[in-house]
């Protein structure tokens, strides 16, 4: 177990270093940060001095080495644009993104699983077919478009819900939450639906196909033969056995929810990390971009590691091979 964990940890570090390297080597293609940091009347000499001070004239490997050393100690430097420590900005923005991702995950599960079960049980039903065709729309429509359509319908035409932002937020220590105010909750609805829609359809289709699979197995037939009521067969026997892969996928998708929030956050001007990242690209704010990419890589690495450890705990075969 210890050596397994150690190996995993080592791999994670390699992954993080690779992400940092690739991200860093791409920054030279995003453009010149200096021009965004000074006004049009600023002299060339001052621009050159600024470039020198920021270390942008150093060779790539020197810049990368400096960044890695600082990042290893948790220091991501100062935002070029805001002159505020990047770690501070990220912590300020993180609650918004995490709350959005959390609500989206709940929506995706709360609707995805029942719909999946329903469409599996009533395979030929009219409503099932409707749901299945609609789910295609959810998979294929780009998030940006869904967001704009929802804004138009519920924000502009019906005027039930706010079109942008987080509403009033309440500060609890370092955390800001929109869960405690009406406007905060109302603001959550549209973006979380937008973000959840893809995951929802994914989970629904997954549950459906797993259910269909399980319903054909012998133990379900036996259960029926024992004369158990349908309800018990469907939910106690079948659904339970479909949930293993669903939980795995959902865990992994949580990472994507956070990472894919970029588009949803831009459409709804949701003040989270994704929006900050998009803005940073436009401003060529390298410290923010680097820190964000590292953080997302870190999320994925951690989630993968937890999933791996769970497998290890569940699957005895892994343990056996480890011992040999």
């Amino acid at each position, binding site marked *: 177990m210890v050596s397994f964990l150690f190996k995993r940890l080592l791999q994670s570090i390699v992954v993080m270093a690779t992400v940092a390297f690739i991200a860093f080597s791409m920054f030279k293609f995003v*453009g010149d940060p200096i021009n*965004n940091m000074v*006004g*049009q009347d600023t002299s060339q000499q001052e621009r050159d001095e600024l470039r020198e001070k920021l270390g942008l004239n150093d060779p790539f490997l020197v810049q990368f080495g400096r960044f890695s050393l600082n990042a290893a100690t948790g220091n991501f430097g100062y935002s070029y*644009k805001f*002159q505020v420590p990047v770690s501070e900005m990220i912590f300020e923005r993180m609650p918004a993104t995490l709350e959005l991702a959390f609500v989206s995950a709940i929506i995706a599960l709360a609707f995805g699983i029942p719909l999946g079960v329903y469409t599996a049980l009533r395979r030929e039903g009219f409503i099932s077919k409707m749901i299945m065709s609609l789910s295609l729309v959810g998979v294929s429509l780009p998030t940006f478009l869904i967001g704009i359509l929802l804004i138009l319908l519920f924000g*502009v035409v019906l005027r039930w819900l706010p079109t*942008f932002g987080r509403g009033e937020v309440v500060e609890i220590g370092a955390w800001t939450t929109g869960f405690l105010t009406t406007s905060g909750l109302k603001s959550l609805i549209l973006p979380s639906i937008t973000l959840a829609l893809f995951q929802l359809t994914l989970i629904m289709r997954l549950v459906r196909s797993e259910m269909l699979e399980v319903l054909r197995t012998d133990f379900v037939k036996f259960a029926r033969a024992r004369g158990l009521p349908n309800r018990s067969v469907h939910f106690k026997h079948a659904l339970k056995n479909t949930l293993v892969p669903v939980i795995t996928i959902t865990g992994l998708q949580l990472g994507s929810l956070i990472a894919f929030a970029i588009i949803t956050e*831009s459409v709804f001007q949701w003040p989270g990390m994704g929006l900050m990242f998009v803005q940073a690209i*436009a401003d060529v704010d390298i410290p923010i971009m680097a820190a964000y990419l590292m953080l997302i890589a870190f999320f994925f690495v951690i989630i993968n590691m937890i999933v791996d450890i769970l497998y290890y705990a569940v699957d005895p075969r892994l343990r056996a091979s480890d011992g040999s």
Partner: protein
Amino acid sequence: MKLRHGIMAAVAAATIAAAPVAQAETFKYAFQGNLSSLDPHSLNETFLLGSLGNIYEGLSIYDANLAAVPGLAESWETVTPTKWKFNLRKGVKFHNGNDFTAADVVFSWQRTLSEGSDQKVRGSKIKNIEVVDDHTIIIETPAPNPILTSDLVYIYIMDKEWSVANKTEGATSASANTTGNYANLHSNGTGPFKIVEHKADVKTTFDRNAAYWGKIKSNVTKIEFTPIKEAATRVAALISGELDLVYPIPVQDWKRLEEAKGVKPLAGPEARTIFLGMDQGRDELLHSNIKGKNPFKDIRVRQAFAHALNLDAIKKKVMRGAATPSGLMVAPQINGYAADLNTPYAYDPAKSKALLASAGYPDGFEVTMDCPNNRYVNDEKICQAAVSMLAKVGVKVDLLAQPKSKYFGKVLASGNFNTSFYLLGWTPGTMDSENVLSSLLVCQNVETKAGLFNLGNYCNAKVDELTAKVGSETDQAKRNSMIKEAFKIVQDEVGYLPLHQQPLSWGVSDRVTVNQRADNVLDFRYVVVK
């Protein structure tokens, strides 16, 4: 919504009846960019300075039409051509209650020259400030400067005591790893509004400064600013009634705003001139199929380009009728503008072809055009239009449209002016032609830092000479005639291809009236909620 307004109005009426206090009026607006800092000397950018102009003030301030009028200085007079006497306004208090005095002016001027300040250019227009008494100063300039009061508008005055107490004597530096500067996130000005909450890139809230020295038109007591990056989201937020003003609005959305209830587009000509530039300096173009010579050095080729462009078509098709075609490199709002020179080059493709043929390019030639795609109104589309117009006279233009950070990195001095043909826009920060002359029209000289935005290195000794004279001539009439002479030379030589003044494009709710300033700045002083 209507019902709620009705109830609110009734409640408001009841409140007024009960007590004759000023009604609380909130005004909410959004802009595409963010307020990156509250430090008035950190970044010389129109949006930042314009926004902070509601918090901080200079000795002079811009009025609704961009004329410099007395601000923190009550009046001024020139003692000698290089010495100005300013009588400072008495009884003015900073937001924290401190008195405004001459010491604050000296301090703020020195701060504009501090390490990391992006206002050094403005600060260096002052050589020395002599304090006569607490409310009288004499400003000495390095050379006669007829537009000193325009330069002073954006030298915002900070409170010396407050700055020293909070250790923010130096400007927030754009270079990394400075210790957090207090003024970057806090403010203490003399303006009609003060900041109560500032979350960079999320939201900024302003409150009315009850102790403001001046009388202003606005009846607003609270203002909320949110940056909204996506144009579609901005437009939706306005139409849904959540915001009272958003800008900019894509010109293609004007019709939608006209049709929607309760909102309307607000358009006007911006003081920014969009133009095309050509590399006339190098002996061989960097990006062209013509080797061994530079076609743009031949005036006939430049004339051919000028006559190939159909500015009216660009106005109608690309700008939806909202641009003002221009023959000059400055807009009508800019001091030194000459109406009789503003006729654009005539659209005449036949003449253009003939000129190309006589210059030795009967079949045209190939050249690469650099264009930003997220800097100016419909910038990439303008370039595309120009490409197809030039194709009609045989010039094959290869368009390279990029985001502004890539574009500027390539074409500016930092990229060694790596361009042969480009689109650029310019608003002189001082609202005076001298800035256009010295930035765009004088010969490029990297050593003396002259003409650094003259990317194509248009060069004429007479223009250089006139520019130097304009910089120190204090007689307005003489000065303007020299500006005009310089513009005439550039025009006759087809040094640049001016296209148009782009439109200001705001969307406003019917419940407010605002003043749309030609430099795209929202001045809270003129915001009135009905």
